[in-house]
């Protein structure tokens, strides 16, 4: 699905990712954990194509194509989805209108016919139910006046609508109460198929009680320093990151 090799990225001349390697196959869920400042959100941003970051070395092959050569929108059209840590409020732009535009641009990219209004509305109804997002919220301005939990549910709703091959959830759990967390996780789990994959970036082990990963990776100082089964997350929760820092400090 995605193969990241020796990825180096910097911002304003400061190197954040320092040779990151990661391989995710279809049907897998990978969790990336790590202390603050390790480079977790940078990884998500670089994969989504944020232009502030400079890629100084390495390659990312996404389903056979060179991801780093593509524009942000083409990455999305190829099936990459980033659930934002801080979803943006866009006054006046309706959630529904923009999603329909997005879906149709993705379809045009794949040389498919646009979705009909009826089909689209049926899909909205189905997918908003999945994350228990009020249909009224679905048609309001993008994230405007949404609570923190509603914003995160809206991210998963959009993911459900767009059916990406690879979803990257950037700290989707942070700031959520346990009910919202359960709803979000439930949505993600229901969307899981043998043909798609997820990278779940989180600071806390709590989310992984609900979204059970196949692999857990520890990101520290711009590199993945440790990988293991889901039990690694429990170990991190118990022992914190200090032992990682001690082991891998430069």
């Amino acid at each position: 699905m995605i193969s990241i090799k020796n990825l180096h990225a910097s911002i304003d001349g400061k190197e954040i990712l320092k040779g990151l390697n990661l391989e995710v196959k279809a049907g897998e869920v990978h969790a990336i954990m790590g202390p603050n400042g390790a480079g977790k959100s940078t990884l998500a941003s670089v994969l989504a194509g944020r232009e502030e970051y400079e890629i100084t070395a390495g390659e990312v092959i996404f389903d056979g194509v060179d991801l780093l050569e593509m524009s942000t929108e083409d990455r999305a059209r190829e099936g990459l989805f980033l659930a934002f840590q801080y979803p943006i409020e866009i006054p006046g732009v309706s959630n529904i209108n923009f999603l329909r535009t997005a879906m149709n641009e993705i379809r045009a990219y794949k040389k498919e016919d646009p979705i009909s209004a009826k089909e689209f509305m049926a899909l909205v109804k189905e997918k908003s139910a999945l994350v228990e997002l009020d249909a009224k919220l679905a048609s309001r301005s993008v994230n405007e006046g949404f609570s923190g939990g509603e914003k995160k549910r809206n991210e998963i709703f959009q993911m459900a609508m767009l059916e990406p091959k690879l979803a990257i959830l950037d700290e989707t759990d942070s700031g959520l109460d346990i009910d919202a967390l359960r709803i979000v996780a439930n949505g993600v789990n229901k969307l899981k198929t043998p043909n798609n994959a997820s990278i779940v970036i989180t600071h806390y082990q709590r989310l992984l009680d609900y979204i059970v990963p196949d692999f857990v990776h520890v990101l520290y100082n711009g590199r993945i320093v440790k990988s293991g089964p889901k039990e690694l997350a429990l170990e991190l929760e118990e022992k914190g990151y200090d032992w990682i820092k001690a082991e891998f400090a430069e």
Partner: protein
Amino acid sequence: MKEQAVIEQSFAHSIDWKLDGDFVLNEALRANALTYLSENAFPTTRTEAWKYTRVTKIKNNSLHIASAAPIAELAPIDAAAISLVFVNGHFDATRSASDFPAGMKVIPLSQMDEAERNVLGEIDAQKTDLFSAINTAYATDGVYIHVSARVQIAPTIAITHITTGDHVLVNLRHIIHLEKFAELNMIQQNTTDSGENAFSNIINQVYVGENARLTIDKLQNESEHAFHHATEFINQQKDSVFTINTITLNGGWVRNNLNCFVNGVNCETNLNGAYVLTGNQHVDNHTVVDHMVAHCNSNELYKGVIDGKATAVFNGKVFVRKDAQKINAFQSNGNVLMSLDASVNSKPELEIYADDVKCSHGSTTGQLDEEAVFYLRARGLSEASARQLMVGAFINDVFEKIENEHVVAWIHDEISKRFNWSFE
């Protein structure tokens, strides 16, 4: 039509144009205006009201009074509307309606009895400015619309101003009078058939009687080489509602002077404006709402999207006079700059001499939120679609205020033609 007169370049520094033509307003008013013009020069940017708008190009333009000329057919914005067409400042009877609903009188000034029209056209001396004087001196036509008391006119009255030919000077004076409880909806459209450097100088003198309601959708879509100066003098009586939506999509140089004198209690005044500019366009909206008495509401929303090297000016002034208590006056101007060369000067002003009022004003100017653009792109929208969606949402706040759906459809259509945007 007498011999056409061309303003000699040597005279261009003064406004002592001495143009020939058939002018419609009464001789005493004209004589005063001509005296005013001979004694005054064009404003410079040292004049506060003209600080950001240069008139040099009008001053140096060799203008002449032109007769009507053939023009291409223009599709109506609202097919059901009663149409009144003016070409180069002259009423075009063949393109205009001749039947009008009962209870309203519609007469072009050029077709009025002299005795009748001699009582029209006076503008309060203290409101006289140079462009109003030019209009008084050189108005070649206009329309007098009178709606009788308690008459609601169902069809929209659509006035279209068309210019054709180069360096054409157009001065039109419309006089619109609504008696008490009358209702009228109007479109005023300004457009160019052909030619460059036309200058249109149009005044609407409007009286909105007690409990009357008037809406004007003013649509400006002239050529990129046209000059347009528009002035409205609105006199509102008690319990009346006046709404004007000023939409500027094209035109090289546009100045709108909107003056609302709210003379009665319990009035509502709505001023909405949108300008979507590119190239070298310059568009200046000056508005005045003068609350003379208590218990009135005014709402003002102007929004602009400015691309290319275009410049926009907004100056909105609200007066609340002494003892005009319980006034709610809201004013807001927002601008999005789409290029590094685009610019805007925005100046909201409040002058309040009463102590129990609720007034607010705000002005914002900025670029599109790049984080939001990225967010939309991350969902698969192209950068162009993302920007268009956001700009459309921004400016649509103003279009949503327009009740005439034909006008809204026309705006969307023109914007898609000129800027290649579409709205949902």
